């Protein structure tokens, strides 16, 4: 095959793809992620939970030894629509390989994962979790099956990402179980 024939094929393919493809998705801020998860007319309330040692221990036990829980101060975002809760968003930062990613994990009033968004991902893009792969977490609760040894399937070629995301979801659901986010705030905020 001549160089020019191959180059022509590449350029033709590129033109075909560029014709209809959307632009690269920018990395999200916390606000943008919340807005995507809870579009108007939802109202989002930021709350902070302070876990006791006993609650933290329980969360650790629920998350499992491979998903360490080390934060006793947890900020989360409860969304309501017309006064009714529609979901709660948690943000979790954790290491993938040597660099961190930040996820937003949305849990519904039924305690099931509703949505996961990647806010920051510093490792090479080929390890970035794909939307289709993240979708498999939707509908999961904190159960033994929520693991790569259970019903979660690893992303081909991205073992460390698969593990990092799965651990993050387990950690968030374990905290969620102790926080009871849809209960009214214990005291009046500012």
């Amino acid at each position, binding site marked *: 095959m001549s160089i020019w024939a191959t180059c022509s094929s590449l350029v033709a393919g590129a033109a075909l*793809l560029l014709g209809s493809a959307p632009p690269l998705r920018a*990395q999200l801020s916390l*606000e943008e992620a919340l807005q995507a998860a809870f579009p108007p007319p939802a109202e989002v309330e930021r709350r902070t939970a302070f876990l006791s040692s006993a609650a933290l221990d329980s969360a650790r036990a629920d998350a499992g030894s491979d998903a360490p829980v080390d934060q006793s101060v947890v*900020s989360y975002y409860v969304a309501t629509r017309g006064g009714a809760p529609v979901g709660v968003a948690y*943000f979790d930062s954790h290491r993938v390989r040597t660099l961190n990613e930040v996820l937003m994990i949305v849990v519904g009033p039924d305690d099931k994962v509703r949505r996961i968004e990647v806010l920051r991902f510093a490792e090479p893009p080929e390890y970035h979790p794909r939307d289709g792969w993240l979708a498999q977490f939707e509908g999961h609760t904190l159960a033994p099956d929520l693991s790569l*040894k*259970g019903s979660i399937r690893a992303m081909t070629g991205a073992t460390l990402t698969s593990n990092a995301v799965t651990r993050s979801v387990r950690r968030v659901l374990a905290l969620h179980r102790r926080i009871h986010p849809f209960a009214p705030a214990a005291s*009046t905020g500012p």
Partner: protein
Amino acid sequence: MFRMVAKARWGGLAASLLMAAPAAAQETTDTAEIRRLQEQVEAITRELEELRLGREVVVQADTSISGLGPAASKVYKTPQGVSIGGYGEFLYENFAGSREDDAPSGLTDRIDAVRAIIYVGYKFSDKVLFNSETEFEHGSTEDGGSVSVEFAYLDYRIRPEFGLRGGLVLAPMGFLNEIHEPPTFLGTVRPETERLIIPSTWREVGVGMFGERKSFAYRAYLINGFDATGFSADEGLREGRQDGAEAAAQNFGGVGRVDYIGIPGVTLGTSAYFGNSGQGASLPSAPETTVGAQTFIWDGHAEYKARGFELRGLLALSTLDDAAEVNELNGLTGAESVGERMLGWYLQGGYDVLRGRSGPQQLLPYVRYEQINTQDEVPDGFTADPANNRRIVTAGAAWRPMPNISLKADYQIVSNEAETGVNQLNVNLGYLF
């Protein structure tokens, strides 16, 4: 309207703070003081959140916004900088004392620091990045080892569906040429099909494009071609790689792959390479004749990795035009002929017997069956060496105490039509980070 407000759930901390200032809280029940404490705690938790998630993520999170507010329309820069990773493996090989035909094998057992690899990447921006892998093989350059750049390329990611790549790239064929960290695959050694027909790790200098659209991922590159003077009967195309080392660039080739990735845990794909390998060489017997040596490689591959199962299959074939001329060029006669056609395939499967237990540990007994013939067809006037028609049965187990580390052991029953196969026991310790 999207509106965000802030509240703190006080619980034990509020009580503690109030107890710390009993005079203010108890004597005056001053709501202003409580409010002040609440605001202080709120400020502390926001600082904490910012420290955990990063300043660029938590941007004015307490600002009420309607529709696309100022924060939403802000351009957030990706943290720039260096990304580091790596992998490595150590291999012990214990060879049987005799061959299939009971003749002495003559092989010496060995242990080897096969590879130690360092990945270094640098993200210039969201769209432009550099990625590289530097490989140290066999422990020391003083004792037969080597240091190589396995890949080093620049990406310009225009859209998810389309990016441009240029530099020293890995040929996107098969499973192992691009993804070969030992903990990610079963087997102490790579299948011969992905060593001789898809000569992993196969890298050349080139340019191309890559991307994903819906359930499909693709990569397509223009790279420098093989050098046919390295082709041989038993090593197939392997020594025809040029590795970006002052490579002859008289001939280029196109290589590409498409994978279906729509179902997590499932990969179905195909890849192909096509290009001349003569690199301008002339026949010794006819100096006016330039050797073309058109080379074609194709593979089809499938993988299922879910619910404890790790199943993988791959079929690869290659064809070489002007094989007789390549033989003359390389001084090969009789059964030394390069293969005009090479064919190889393997099926392997493993199952995690610790799947039912909690924790990250995995233990996967596995088995692989492979057939490969690097002289499936030879040109007229030459013969095939029956020793190159091989069958390898591998049975072993992989223990992963965590996903990044593997200890694998297996036994390989190696046979060929010449009955010169030598069985071997292998142990491999691998890691990645």
